[in-house]
């Protein structure tokens, strides 16, 4: 089962359908005396079109939250639903495919591939999926336009400013029309004005495209754009 079946969505409770739902998620890293509880009974529900910010200091478990919500790491206990599908029920291969099709990641400092142009960065997820067609190209152009990079479509990462790289990363994450958008410290490489712009753009795209968006950051100044703000301390979410 690589696609969240629509009949699942129909039967799932309203809170879980479409968006992201974490139920009682605990993640323990290491074992024995060195064990660390990165996530401590975390529950979080994000509806489609909702922009949730999670703030907290370094080491509070914010990135672990993204890793578990994005299917990069299996929780020690608890469940994660993406668009009605329980991630733990999937095999490793299926989880990889679910990441590709239903989860969009925006990484710190955008993480673009050095040798690809902006347009190629966007087309990459669909190339991986073997779905590179004219529809995909049209969508890439539309997204490049939407994030204001039309004049930069043929540029490579080293020719872009930090803000432009961040916008390219966001556009790439949106290419597959993901149900869930996970954003990791989007403003770590940006100044105050650029940071506000970048987060504003994420908020706009979330509302416009109906993604369930979680942004983790330690930058409390950019929380205003979010619909909801949670605070994370020692693996616990308030």
């Amino acid at each position, binding site marked *: 089962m690589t696609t969240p079946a629509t009949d699942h969505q129909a039967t799932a409770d309203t809170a879980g359908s479409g968006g992201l739902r974490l139920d009682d998620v605990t993640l323990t890293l290491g074992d024995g005396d060195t064990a660390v509880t990165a996530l401590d009974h975390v529950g979080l529900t994000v509806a489609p079109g909702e922009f949730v910010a999670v703030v907290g200091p370094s080491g509070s478990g914010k990135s672990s939250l993204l890793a578990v919500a994005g299917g*990069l790491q299996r929780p020690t206990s608890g469940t994660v639903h993406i668009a009605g599908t329980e991630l733990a029920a999937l095999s490793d291969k299926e989880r990889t*495919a679910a*990441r590709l099709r239903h989860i969009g*990641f925006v990484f710190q400092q955008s993480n673009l591939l050095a040798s690809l142009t902006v347009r190629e960065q966007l087309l990459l997820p669909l190339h*991986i999926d073997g779905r590179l067609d004219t529809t995909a190209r049209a969508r890439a152009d539309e997204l490049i336009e939407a994030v204001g990079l039309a004049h930069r479509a043929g540029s490579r990462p080293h020719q872009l400013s930090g803000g432009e790289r961040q916008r390219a990363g966001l556009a790439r994450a949106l290419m597959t029309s993901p149900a869930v958008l996970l954003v*990791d410290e989007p403003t770590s490489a940006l100044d105050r004005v650029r940071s506000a712009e970048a987060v504003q753009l994420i908020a706009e795209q979330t509302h416009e495209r109906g993604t369930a968006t979680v942004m983790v950051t*330690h930058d409390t100044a950019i929380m205003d754009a979010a619909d909801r703000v949670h605070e994370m301390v020692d693996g616990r979410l308030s």
Partner: protein
Amino acid sequence: MVRGPGVERAEPFGNTLANAQVAQGVKKGEHVNLAVFGMAPDSSLAPRPSRGEGLKEGGAGIVITREIADLGVEIGDVLTEDRSGVRLKVVGLVDETVSYGHIGVVYADLGTWRHLHYGLPGDLPEAASRQATAVALTLKPGADVAAVEKATGTLAETKEATFDASPGYEAESSTMALIKGFLYVISALVVGAFFTVWTVQRKPEIALMKALGAPTGYILRDALAQVVAVLVGATALGTAVGLALGSAMIGKAPFSLSAPAIATSSGLLIVLGTVGAVVAVRRITAVDPLTALGATR
């Protein structure tokens, strides 16, 4: 001389090393080393000169090859062989590098060769007048070599096998083969090391692609396609450079590069390089997509 089932021709062949001095010619007084090949002027072994004339029975004329001509010996020159004192007139030139044990070859008729071989001028004893080093057999398909050996009390070898009997040939060729073998192994190791560094440097990008949802197989295929492209391009470039350098050396050193040799060595380099690279890019499977997330976790 040698008869047997399937023997088409049997031709005596003489082989000896001699020293001579130029008695008449531009290089008069110069000493030259000769590898003398003797054969009947009408045999299939006889040289076909590109200039001058061929061998004649009893004429004491010799046909030189390029290696001797490069020393300044010309058609019309006369050489005196040291031991026998026989005067050898240069009648023709085969414009090819032919050497035996790194000594330039000259061709002589069998009578002349026997004088040089025994170091005797004048009439030769009866026993010497039938002497040859070997007999060259030309065989028909299905020839019974064993029967020929038995009937004549001789030992038959293929032409290639007799090369090993020439001075230093086996030692030199086995040394070269060893060097070649090591170079192939080293090239596989170098290619493996190159792509190991490449893979390690790409780790963040590999983690990113995995996090985006690229299956490991996709990344491996992509890496191997790049490996093969690099190997094919680099091998083509290397072959071109080798050919250019080799061509520049022609005349100063023996150089020969045949299409099959190029194909074999290029093929081996690409195959062995790919093997080395496969070992290197296997570490792609071990890259953890989690590392694509920030260091703040």
